[in-house]
Every structure is written in structure tokens, then in C-alpha cells.
């Protein structure tokens, strides 16, 4: 009997199957600068989704015929680990992976000042380690953070989320159970929130124009909140040091009075050392 019961995706209190409100996204944590061998990187968890993104470059675009002498080209690769889905995924990239890679790369291109790095390529690798619907929004959101972490100049961060409709109600950030609902609509969208420019927009399902407008509004609000998380992740790497700073400021004030007295005598010694160093380097050059 229970298996035939219809699922109530949004109940009378406006709560979904996992207890969320219709405009609430799953919990998201973002950490920048996590990979030692990448110029920029980001690890992002979004509900059950777990994605690790690396940025390499800008470096020489190869093979040479794909290089653009006026701007950098963006190569985005979206891949899912074989164990990241309920039914093992064949490691060879499928058409879905290739399509997602294309639209995500195009989404990011708009945000980057590509003309600053002609003849180069910027390579972004998004590896999905665990998934539960919305992995492309997770990958794109993380990728934007990784690009900023790499110091690549951008107009704005790109923030992505999936909106949709289940049971006639517009909801933010569908999970897998909701995506599988009958007549569910899934609409991944990505924006540069300052200018409200939409850089990624896809849709699966049957939508009315009014529903699209409602979904857009829900998306914009969701994106504002997620963008704040992206900003916090980037600034967090520097926050701890600022706290330490305040502690040590009082300490160093006392010490600086003492050291001011010392530096006078040290300055004389310094000058001698500088001379020594210069002679050292001359001598070394001669020896060789």
C-alpha cells in the first residue's frame, strides 16, 4: 500500500520531503585553495553533491591552431567519478558530460577578462565525487571560486542554481527524488549577479511563461545567497590572519618601543652587512 501512495512533494505547511521550504537550497559549504598543484582550486559540498575543481593556466594554448591571438580560451571539463552515482558510471566521457562541459565553459567565459591573456588557455577540471541532482550547478559555482582563487581577472563571480517545479509549485534546488517526480521541471541557471546577466540557462520539462517568470525570481534570490557563500570562501583564507593581527597588535606596540631603541645601533651594523653581501656576490661571481 505504501509504495503506491502518492508522494507529497510539498505539503500544506510548504515543506518538502526533506523538510526544506520551497525557496530553500540544501546546505552548501565552500573551501578555496585546497589543491597544491593547481593555480586555483575549490572544494564544494551542496547537499550530497561533492565537487573538486582545479584551474590551470593561463598557459600557452596548444595545439597552436586552437589558440586565439586576441584572447584566452576556456577549456572546461566536467567529469563524474565512477562511484559518484547510484549505478556505476563508465569513466569514458558520455554525451551528457561533454554537453555540460561545453555550457559551463561558455558560462564562465563571459565573466573572465579573456583579452588580458591572448594566445593562452585556461583549463578548468570539475570532478564530481558524489552526486544527488544539481551537480552541474555545484561544479559551475565551485569553478568560479577556483578561477578567482587562481587570480584570473573577472567582472564578477558566476553563481549557479537549479530551479524547478514539482507538484505545481516552483522550488529552488531540486534533489534527485524531486527531479524524478512526475511532471517535474528542472531548470539550471547561472548568473553574474551584479549585472543579472544570465550565462547558463537550460530547461527540461513543460513550463508556462508565468512559471518561468516565477522561477526566475526564485533563482535570483537563491543566487544572491549562494554568491555570499562564494565570497566568504574566498575571503576566509585571509580572515584568520586578521584575527591574529588584532591580538599581536597590542603585543607589538609594547615591543616596538623597545626595538626602536635597538634599531639605531642595528642600522650601523646593517650598512656593514649590506656591503659584505655585495662583496660576497662579487667574489662569488669571480670565483665562478
Amino acid at each position, binding site marked *: 500500500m505504501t509504495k503506491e501512495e502518492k508522494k507529497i512533494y510539498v505539503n500544506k505547511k510548504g515543506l518538502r520531503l526533506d523538510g526544506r521550504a520551497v525557496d530553500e537550497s540544501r546546505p552548501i559549504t565552500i573551501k578555496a585553495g585546497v589543491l597544491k598543484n593547481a593555480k586555483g582550486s575549490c572544494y564544494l559540498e551542496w547537499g550530497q553533491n561533492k565537487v573538486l575543481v582545479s584551474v590551470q593556466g593561463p598557459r600557452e594554448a596548444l595545439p597552436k591552431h586552437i589558440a586565439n591571438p586576441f584572447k584566452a580560451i576556456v577549456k572546461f571539463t566536467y567529469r563524474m567519478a565512477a562511484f559518484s552515482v547510484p549505478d556505476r558510471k563508465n569513466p569514458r566521457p558520455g554525451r551528457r558530460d561533454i554537453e555540460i562541459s561545453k555550457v559551463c565553459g561558455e558560462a564562465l567565459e563571459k565573466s573572465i*577578462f579573456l583579452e588580458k591573456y591572448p*594566445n593562452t588557455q585556461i583549463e578548468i577540471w570539475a570532478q564530481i565525487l558524489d552526486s544527488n541532482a544539481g551537480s552541474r550547478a555545484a561544479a559551475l559555482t565551485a569553478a568560479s571560486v577556483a578561477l578567482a582563487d*587562481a*587570480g584570473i581577472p573577472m567582472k564578477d*563571480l558566476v553563481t549557479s542554481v537549479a530551479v524547478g517545479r514539482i507538484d505545481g509549485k516552483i522550488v529552488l534546488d531540486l534533489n534527485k527524488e524531486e527531479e524524478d517526480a512526475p511532471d517535474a521541471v528542472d531548470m539550471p541557471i547561472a548568473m553574474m549577479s551584479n*549585472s543579472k546577466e544570465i550565462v547558463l540557462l537550460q530547461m527540461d520539462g513543460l513550463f508556462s511563461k508565468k512559471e518561468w517568470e516565477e522561477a526566475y525570481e526564485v533563482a535570483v534570490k537563491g543566487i544572491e545567497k549562494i554568491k555570499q557563500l562564494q565570497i566568504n570562501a574566498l575571503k576566509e583564507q585571509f580572515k584568520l590572519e586578521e584575527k591574529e593581527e588584532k591580538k599581536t*597588535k597590542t603585543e607589538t606596540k609594547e*615591543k616596538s618601543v623597545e626595538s626602536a631603541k635597538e634599531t639605531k645601533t642595528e642600522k650601523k651594523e646593517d650598512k656593514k652587512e*649590506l656591503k659584505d653581501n655585495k662583496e660576497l656576490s662579487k667574489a662569488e661571481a669571480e670565483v665562478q
Partner: protein
Amino acid sequence: MKKIVVPGELVTEQRKRTGDHVFVHNGQIYSDTVGITNNESTTASVVPLKGIYIPKQGDILIGLVVNELFSGFLVDVNSFSLSYMSKDRIREPLKRGSIVSVRVSKTNELNEADVSDARVFYGGEVFAVSPVKVPRIIGKNGSMLDILRKGTNCNFIVGRNGRIWAKGGNVPLLIKAIKKIEAEAHTSNLTNKMAEFLSKQRNII
């Protein structure tokens, strides 16, 4: 007042002269990178905390000779592409693997650089830091360099491209100190902190 900004974040609403790493949109000035901006400054600019080295004429770099061509050498300077160095006026013996300091003699709109005035280093160690942190490692009028030299007795050269060659003295301590500057480049009073750090380390030894 200094504050950390991210790409797309407003630097100022005021009408100011624009400096590095900002762009103007609808009359307002925004940052294009993760960095520090000071709103008390008369120019709106951002000092990046992350980034890649873009060759500028006159910069001194530490490079590695990667290849010998008929009329010149290809030098890896940790940038987008290898730099070309003509064989004219090179007096020192160079080969693949030679560590050199070079000067950027010419750049073009593709950020490619020609280099010259090679000086070879023998022995010692080469390590890399983020190129955007180099100004901090040098300090105002070389003040941080002085502290590092005094604190480690090392002979070292810091290239604008983030590569550093060091020899003699306590090189491991120098590397540790420079990595510390790299991590804390955005904090204030760093010069004093480093002087303290190095004197403590010396007392331990």
C-alpha cells in the same frame, strides 16, 4: 582603511583615478581580482593576493634555460610562454638547466617576452612563490629584503616572476620565512613580525 575584495566587488562609489586591477561600470569602480584595496587612497586600485606573472620591460627575473637554439636560448620564466634570449652579448656558458637572472628587454601584446643580460648562478637552490607577493618580499626600499638577509645570512635574488635563487647561510630558514611572508602578505606590520620571527628562529638554533 584596507579591505579585502573579490572579483565584481565594489571598490568605491566615488569618482577616483583608476589603478591596477579595477574596472569601471556604470560610473562605479569594481575589483577584478581577489586582493586588498585601501579606500583612503586617492587612486582606486587593488593589490592582488593571487595571480600570474605578466612580463614587463625592465623586470629582473630568475629563469631556467630550457633549450638552446641556433641563435639564442629559450628560458622558462614562469609565465605564459618561454622567453627568447639572443646569443648576442652572452659571455657566460649556458646550457639546458642553467639558472640565470635575466632582464626583460622587450614584450609584445601577446605577453611574450625577450630577455637579455643573463647572469649565471652556480649551486644554490631555486624555489618559487606567488609573483604577486614579490613586492611584499622586497618591502619598502628593500626593507624586508634587509631583514631576510640579516636573519638568514643568505645570498639571494628575488625575481619579479616569483622565482628566488638562494645560496649560503640558512637557506631552509629563508624559504620558511619567505613562505610565511607569502601567507601573511595581506597583514600589516609584517616587516616587524618577520624580524621577530627570524630572531626567535636564530635563538632556537
